[in-house]
């Protein structure tokens, strides 16, 4: 009787069930964490962006794994025993998956280092890869820990500048990485929040010490991309250094943020204070 109850309890408690063997990830950010934490055999499908070397930090590892474009049929066809979702998953898709009874695991994708650690640990436990998760977390925390000499000089200011005049204010991964690397984010200081389009006149008036940009892909032509070569920007920011950080390092919260921080620290040590 007691063993019977125990058996039922074991079956109903997902944490004690066998580790998931066919995991489908719906989003580039969950793709990358999944590929870092899971055994390759555990991964059934990742999103089509996971193999794109400009956007995905784990592009090489994603090669050969079948991919999907977030269509319900493709997801079901993979016969998943766990589906990774994010707060940005389309509510309609999530609702359908819930109705069909698939087990979902939602990453929080918070931007603070503690929240990144929390996501890694949570997913690692769910995949029953806890020790791999802890190694990843220790490595991440060690790499982003501020080096002692960085407190000596006042932080210089940087502006993240993207095509169409987009920039990152408060509550963005770019803001987080800039501050971890000892920069001030000019857009956040001026009160911007999130990834927003800033007026060119504003951007020019802000006068940052350096510019940071993340080319999306190989340079293509569009109005948006032409904005970056606007004569006004060239004349005013011509003397300032422009640093390029690959987008794959800070498009998603995860251990790769340490790579972005490392590059920004190196950039900082090369930037002259005015």
């Amino acid at each position, binding site marked *: 009787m007691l063993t019977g109850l125990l058996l039922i309890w074991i079956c109903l408690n997902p944490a004690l069930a066998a580790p998931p063997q066919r995991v489908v990830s719906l989003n580039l950010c969950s793709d990358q964490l999944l590929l870092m934490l899971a055994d390759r055999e555990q991964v059934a499908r990742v999103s089509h962006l996971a193999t794109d070397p400009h956007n995905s930090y784990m592009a090489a590892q994603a090669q050969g794994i079948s991919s999907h474009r977030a269509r319900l049929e493709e997801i079901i066809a993979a016969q998943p025993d766990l589906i990774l979702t994010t707060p940005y998953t389309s509510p309609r898709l999530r609702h359908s998956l819930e109705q069909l009874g698939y087990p979902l695991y939602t990453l929080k994708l918070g931007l603070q280092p503690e929240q990144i650690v929390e996501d890694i640990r949570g997913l690692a436990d769910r995949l029953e890869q806890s020790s791999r998760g802890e190694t990843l977390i220790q490595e991440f925390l060690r790499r982003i820990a501020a080096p002692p000499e960085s407190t000596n000089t006042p932080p210089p200011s940087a502006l993240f500048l993207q095509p169409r005049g987009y920039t990152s204010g408060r509550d963005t991964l770019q803001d987080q990485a800039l501050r971890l690397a000892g920069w001030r984010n000019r857009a956040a200081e001026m009160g911007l929040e999130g990834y927003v389009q800033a*007026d060119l006149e504003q951007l020019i008036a802000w006068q940052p010490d350096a510019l940071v940009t993340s080319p999306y892909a190989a340079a293509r032509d569009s109005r948006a991309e032409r904005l970056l070569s606007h*004569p006004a920007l060239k*004349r005013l920011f011509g003397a300032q250094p422009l640093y390029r950080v690959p987008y794959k390092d800070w498009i998603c919260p995860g251990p790769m943020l340490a790579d972005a921080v490392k590059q920004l620290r190196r950039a900082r040590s090369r930037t002259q204070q005015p």
Partner: protein
Amino acid sequence: MNQQPQLRINTLLGGGLLGVCLLSLLIGSQTIPLWQALQESFSSHPGVSAIILTELRLPRTLVALLAGASLGLCGAVMQSLLRNPLASPGLVGSASGAALGAVVTLYFGLASLAAFSLPLGGILGALLATLLVYLLAGREADTLTLILAGVAVNSFALALVSLLLNLAPSPYAVQEIALWMLGSLANVSRDDLLLLLPGTLLGWLLIARQGRALDLLTLGEEAADSLGVGLPRLRKRLFLAVALAVGSAISVTGAIGFIGLVVPHLLRPLVGYQPSRLLLPSALGGALLLLLADILVRAIPLPGEIKVGVITSLIGAPFFLWLILHGRRRAG
């Protein structure tokens, strides 16, 4: 009709335009000391204000001026040439054709090969679309046929613009659909001004001194022909002129609606319904209207600028309606 009221209208519009130009240099998200910025811009190390003035506001003002003038002027020319009050770059396909041509060259790598391929694409697109409408509707087309042909070519061209932007390799292309459909002057630079200038001036030059021929055309095609107007040549010349001016403007600003329709209409009664006298006021009026609309766009405090074509259409569409109702009442 004597020259006096004609002169008065032109002076009035010109004066207004001058004032609005000054206003356009003053208005933006940053407040800059204009006089100081002006002095600074002549020094060897211009400051932020000087650069905002000379690299952002000045090119934007001049592009609005030239594009608006082209649209107004070409509206007047087309209405006179086709002897149809509804002909305008927006309605007979030149504008959407130009947008299509520009989109093809910009997003598929041709514009980065040679800078002038962008306006060239616009000019070619405008020419093809206009000719297509003209051939579809036939010479001496009645208003209805012309409008129907225009609607067909317009929607086809804009559908292609949308499709091509979806297929374009740039990840930003899809977000720029609104720009091409509605038009925008945001962040134009002096490079854009230089792209727009040659075609615009050439187009204007071709139109200059054709006023008399257009006047004679009001008597009917045969009468004009007997009075020495070489109609096929005139038609070719003016179609080319419209394509040059409108194509150049739109490949920089996107398809801006209604200016070419509304401005000549408003001014026609004031110049005694004489095509030759309508040309200059239409150009001035078009520039004035586009510049005012663009100032409004900048002055409205919204996150992310609204497109200037939204304003011109918001003004233009009700006017168009009024035109229809007014015409019906007069006829009835």
